[in-house]
Every structure is written in C-alpha cells, then in structure tokens.
C-alpha cells in the first residue's frame, strides 16, 4: 500500500546530506516550506545548492542556513529582500556563489527537467549578460539562447492538502513554484496543512499528482500563510 506520509520532519529530511541541491517552493512569504526549512537548518549541512526564486533573501530557516555557511551556492532570480542584506554581505565577501537566472527561464528550466526536455531555446536573456556564453541561434527572426533543464536532488514544498498517495492541492498564491519543483527533483518532500483521506481531493482539483511526491509531513500551522 502506498503511504507517502512520514511521522515527523526528521523522517521527511532523512538522507539529505552535504553537497545536495535543494529546490525550495514558495514565492515571498506564501507557500514556503517553513517547518522543513527550519529542520534543514538544524542539520548542520555544508555546501548545499539552494534553488528558489528568493533563495538569496533571508527569512527564518533560510537566514540560519546562510549565516552558518551551509549554503555554497544559490540559483535564483532575485537574491534581494527588503528586510535583509545578509546574502549581499556573504556574496560581497565571496563566501557564496550565485547563479542568476531570469525568473521565467528559471521556472521553465525546472519545468523542462520534469517534462523530459533536456534543453530549449528562448529569447529571454539573448544578447544580455545573463545570456553570455550560452549557445545562441536566430529562430523566426529572433535571437534565442539555449537553456538546459534544471534538476535538483530534493524539492521542499508546502501544500494545502495531501492524501496518502501524495496528491497535493495548494491555496491561491501558495501554488507558485511548488508544483513545478515537485516534478524536477529526484526526491520531493512536502509539508501539508491538511491531511485528507484518499479521494479527499477531487480528481479535477489535484494540482500535483502523487507520482511526483515522495514524502509528506503533516504540519498543521494554522490557516495563515506563514
């Protein structure tokens, strides 16, 4: 019998080790796997690659991950935050690497990883510093760059509802990067607000089918976003 639920955060993160690449769901304060991130920060890991839209912004567990030197590299589109300069300081000191990617290219590269597309052409970033060094080609009169699929060892997500197959639903802006990362990572770990019976999510309303989810931990943080 399929049962993706694990008893606690430690079981959810079992096996995550030094050097792992980790996608973090969420956009801004919504849809972030806050409890998983806090537990990750407690693990004392090194040389992590963090892939997320706001991976350079510091908040909760992310602040601790950055401060303690657990993160060697960040792949993101917007490593800034109105309430923290921690990433900037680390970057200026050369203590963290940054792979900056346009947000649309970032998420399309994740989508490609999940969809079996090893590489694709896009006009975004063609002719700019962020397209420099990449293969280019003019297609239909437009300069394009070749971008590669972006995989990760782990994805940490936050869902609204989950069942034992690992089917997930999200709430409004909480959807964001979560369903895309679910398919792009080797091991996908979700924390969910609500644990429902199998069939509790209508077939038309499942956003992430359980095939993409390896472990689910129930973290009933209440109904607010953070």
């Amino acid at each position, binding site marked *: 019998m399929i049962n993706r639920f694990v008893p606690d955060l430690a079981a959810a993160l079992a096996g995550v080790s030094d050097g792992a690449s980790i996608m973090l769901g969420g956009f801004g304060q919504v849809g972030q796997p806050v409890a998983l991130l806090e537990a990750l920060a407690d693990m004392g890991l090194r040389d992590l690659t963090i892939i997320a839209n706001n991976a350079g912004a510091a908040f909760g567990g992310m602040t601790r991950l950055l401060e303690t030197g657990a993160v060697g590299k960040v792949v993101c589109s917007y490593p800034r935050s109105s309430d923290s300069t921690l990433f900037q300081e680390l970057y200026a000191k050369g203590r963290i690497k940054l792979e900056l990617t346009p947000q649309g290219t970032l998420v399309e590269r*994740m989508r490609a990883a999940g969809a079996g597309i090893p590489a694709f052409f896009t006009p975004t970033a063609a002719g700019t510093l962020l397209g420099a060094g990449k293969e280019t080609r003019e297609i239909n009169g437009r300069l394009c760059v070749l971008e590669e699929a972006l995989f990760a060892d782990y994805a940490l997500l936050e869902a609204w509802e989950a069942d034992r197959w690992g089917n997930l639903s999200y709430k409004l*802006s909480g959807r964001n990067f979560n369903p895309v990362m679910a398919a792009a990572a080797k091991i996908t770990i979700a924390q969910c607000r609500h644990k429902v019976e199998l069939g509790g999510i209508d077939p038309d309303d499942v956003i992430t089918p359980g095939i993409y989810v390896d472990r689910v931990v129930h973290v009933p943080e209440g109904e607010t976003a953070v």
Partner: protein
Amino acid sequence: MSATLNPIKTYTREQMAARAAMDIPDGWFANLGIGLPTLVSDYVPAEREVIFQSENGILGVGPKPAPADVNPWVINAGKAYVTLLPGASIMNSAESFAMIRGGHLDLAVLGGYEVSQTGDLANWSTGDNEQAPAVGGAMDLGAGAKQVWVLMEHVTKSGQPRLVDTCSYPLTTIGSVTRVYTNIAVVEITPRGFLLLDTAPGVSFEDVQARTGAKLHR
C-alpha cells in the same frame, strides 16, 4: 547638462502613473513591474476593464485590501497583499511565465534605468560588481509582452538623459520597448527612433529634446 536648461514643472510619480494608465485600452491584459509601475492600476478609468497579471501566478489582480480584509494567501509579485477580482485565476509559476513569454500579455509596464532609440532596455543592473545582481521577471516580461512601456524619470538625479542613443548599463532586452512614459513626456519607439507623442503641461518639444540623449522626432 541640466545647468543650462530652462526649469520646467514635471509630473509627480502619481501623475506619471496616471498618464500611462490613460493610454491602456479597455480589455487589455497587463503586467505591472514592481515599484512605480504598480501605481498604474490605481489610475485606470473606472469604465475600462483592464486585467492585471502578477508573475507569481495571478491573472485578475484587484486593489490592495483594507487591513481587516487581508487574505494572507493572496500576494502579488511585489510580495504585497492584494485582492482577487471576480474572474481571477491562479496558475503555477511555469504557467504564469508561459503566459508572459508566450506573447499573451498585451502590455508590460516596467521601470527603467535607460532606454535606447532602438528600444533596448536597461533596468536590472548598474554593473556594480559588489552588489549581488537581481533580475526577477524583467527579462521575461521585456521579451514576452506585445507592448513594453517603460515608466521612468526622464533624466538621472545628476541630470543625465535616460533616453539614449545606446544603453550604457547592462541590457535587459533588445529592441522590445515600444513606449516610454517619463515625468515630462510620452515617447514612442519607432523605426526612425524616438517620437514625441505628448508632454507634461507647459513642457515644449525643445525642453524634451534638450533632456534626451538622441534625436527626438515629431
């Protein structure tokens, strides 16, 4: 440059946003960049239905809620609480950027450092190597929307033109800006270069040309 110019009265930030909003036709789908462009939605005439997209996955963004009405699950790309209009829809980030990059938005309104007379845009990096660069969705919006309008001051704080022959800052997109709304003028990018469409009250063609780094047509 500024020292030799006639003093002129310029639009406020709110007036710049209102001037751009006036030109958005009924029924358009638009994305507003973070900062100044976000103000545009406040000034769309009430009789027009303009649908705003937010790249974190909302089509049909409504106004800011009163503090008591905040839904903590509804934020825009600027991480501010917003509302959903009736008819709004939610999508994931890949679907949201597919919408942007697939050429479906009628309009993106972006901030800018510089716009060249061929429509190149520089708005993401000053080229300062100390500061970790950030780009967000600017390159996708700039390359993807049918119309790209840039909302920016006409000159820098030190009086240097921002509408230029060739951008000096790192580019965001090549040749995709269609119009610029500044605190003194509305300038269209045409095959001939900059074309003055309108000015702030009391501002002349010559005033705008004097503050512009390339030939201004009329």
